[in-house]
């Protein structure tokens, strides 16, 4: 059946802003140009914010984090991680079909976003002049975290099992304190949280990914450090993701810092420490997963 196309006739009269003059308007001492709150408004009592004065230790005894998965039905998988002032939520959509050309392996995309009001670490340094990172709408920092997580995931997901499909990972940074935690610390926890979200989505992984973040202070490596832990001149930071398969394979590394002694020795020391933290985190994540599976039975 065919319909004749009837164009809408749009009234093109220009909109005139008519300000009515009310003779009964209240007295002039009322400020009518601003929206004021009620006169009886009370100021909310803001509790004193506890500064995250936690410092890194070499044995990782101070590391605390909260995990939760499966909170959402909209996403295929969702995981939530909270540690200190950092709150990360990762949602996984997929595997879902793509449109276009045939692809033999699934395409994986990771997108990390900070909530708009959050101060991003080293914002000026990374975002300063160039916004040309090829990813629409992502800042330089968000892009870096996305790339790091994606690198780690690519090594562990058997993408060839999912032809013609796409797996989309959305990382939302809900809270982050750039004064106490560095970008690398965020990357480490994000990687761990993402692997949990993958498990929740039921997407196959050859192994869990867990990450460690360390900072060198002299010759000791501090696990899960806070900013300023090792500010004795140049300090070197390292974050690495591991799978325990193949005897603790490293699937992603990110080093940052201004130290002169970034030699092989320092690298080995840091990777070793990263592994310790990663194992510490892994045993907790595994414990959580086993508890989760048993509660479902």
């Amino acid at each position, binding site marked *: 059946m065919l319909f004749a196309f009837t164009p809408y006739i749009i009234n093109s009269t220009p909109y005139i802003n008519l300000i009515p003059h009310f003779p009964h308007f209240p007295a002039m001492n009322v400020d009518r140009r601003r929206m004021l709150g009620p006169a009886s408004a009370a100021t909310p009592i803001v509790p004193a914010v506890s500064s995250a004065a936690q410092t890194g230790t070499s044995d990782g005894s101070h590391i605390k984090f909260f995990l939760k998965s499966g909170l959402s039905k909209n996403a295929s998988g969702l995981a939530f991680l909270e540690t200190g002032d950092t709150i990360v939520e990762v949602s996984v959509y997929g595997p879902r079909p793509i449109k276009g050309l045939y692809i033999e392996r699934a395409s994986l995309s990771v997108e990390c976003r900070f909530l708009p009001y959050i101060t991003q670490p080293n914002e000026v340094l990374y975002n300063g002049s160039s916004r040309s990172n090829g990813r629409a709408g992502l800042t330089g920092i968000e892009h870096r975290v996305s790339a790091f997580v994606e690198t780690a995931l690519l090594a562990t997901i058997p993408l060839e099992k999912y032809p013609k499909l*796409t797996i989309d990972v959305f990382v939302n940074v809900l809270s982050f304190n750039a004064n106490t935690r560095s970008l690398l610390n965020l990357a480490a926890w994000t990687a761990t949280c993402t692997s949990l979200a993958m498990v929740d989505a039921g997407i196959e992984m050859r192994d869990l990914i867990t990450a460690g973040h360390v900072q060198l202070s002299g010759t000791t490596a501090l696990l899960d450090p806070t900013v300023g832990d090792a500010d004795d001149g140049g300090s070197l930071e390292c974050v690495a993701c591991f799978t325990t398969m193949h005897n603790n394979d490293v699937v992603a590394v990110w080093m940052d810092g201004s130290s002169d002694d970034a030699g092989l020795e320092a690298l080995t020391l840091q990777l070793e420490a990263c592994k310790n933290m990663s194992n510490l985190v892994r045993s907790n994540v595994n414990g959580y997963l086993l508890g989760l*599976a048993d509660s479902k039975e």
Partner: protein
Amino acid sequence: MTTVVPGQYLEPEYKPNDNGGTEELCRYFPGKGAAISSVKVGAHTLPVVVATLLGRKVVQELKDPAEDDAEEDADDKNNPAKPKFRKFLVSVVAGKQSQYSEYADQIEASAVASVRAAATNLPREGDIVLARVTRLQLKQAHCEILCVYGHGNVSSDGGVGSIGTNAHMSLPMGGGSQILSSYAAVASSQNAMPGAQPMDIGEAYRALIRTQDIRSTERDKVKIIDCFRPGDLVKAVVLSLGDGSNYYLTTARNDLGVVFAKSEGGAGDLMVAIDWETMVCEKTGVVEKRKCANLFSSAEAAGEESSSNTA
């Protein structure tokens, strides 16, 4: 029944038989939710079946000897003194998400079908699927795959896609790296328009049945309107994974075709098949044409009957 986490070692690929038989070896194949990975033990690299999912470990013995004959024959020539294998399928079943997972260990296992299967029930070549016809064209019928026989639903939100807001759209290659590909992206994107919708909710596994794949005889005389109508549920076999957008299905077998249809384009009542190309509404007696499936014919009978079908 043990609970396993991703990355946990389940079984080595080869293992000597527990009974102490010197000739017998056990071979473990990775099924759903498992994969082969090589692990370094000292100087050796050992293939090990590892879990890739969180769930229960299920081990089934593969009984059918004819299954891997071709493969074994080729191996035997190279190695005449090859030991006898007992074959097992190791899979990981996640939770109690479906009826299938509940009865996973009772479903007959076949190594060939399972080794490359993903944990989700993705349609693969040769699978029998249930699809819903969404749109007809002169040369093809568009469908949406709902479930794979013997495995369960293709996706948890299957069937939602083609009635979603933008059912004709899908993600381009590169997935969600563009804006508005999910509700989360819409919510957090600062340049999303008010009232923006994600590209699609509940992605559909789209498929095509081309006219030449509808039946096995007189393919050039097939009129698609006499075979399917939108809304029909069709039992079909996956012919190929097709292009990026569509799987290709075929109904060219007696046991394949429409299994569920309503008369008058869905407005009427449920119809029953009276022969392979006619359905009749039980209430009103309306007769409509369909390519019906004979659900009660065995696979062998299907081959014999194909000639009588079109006579």
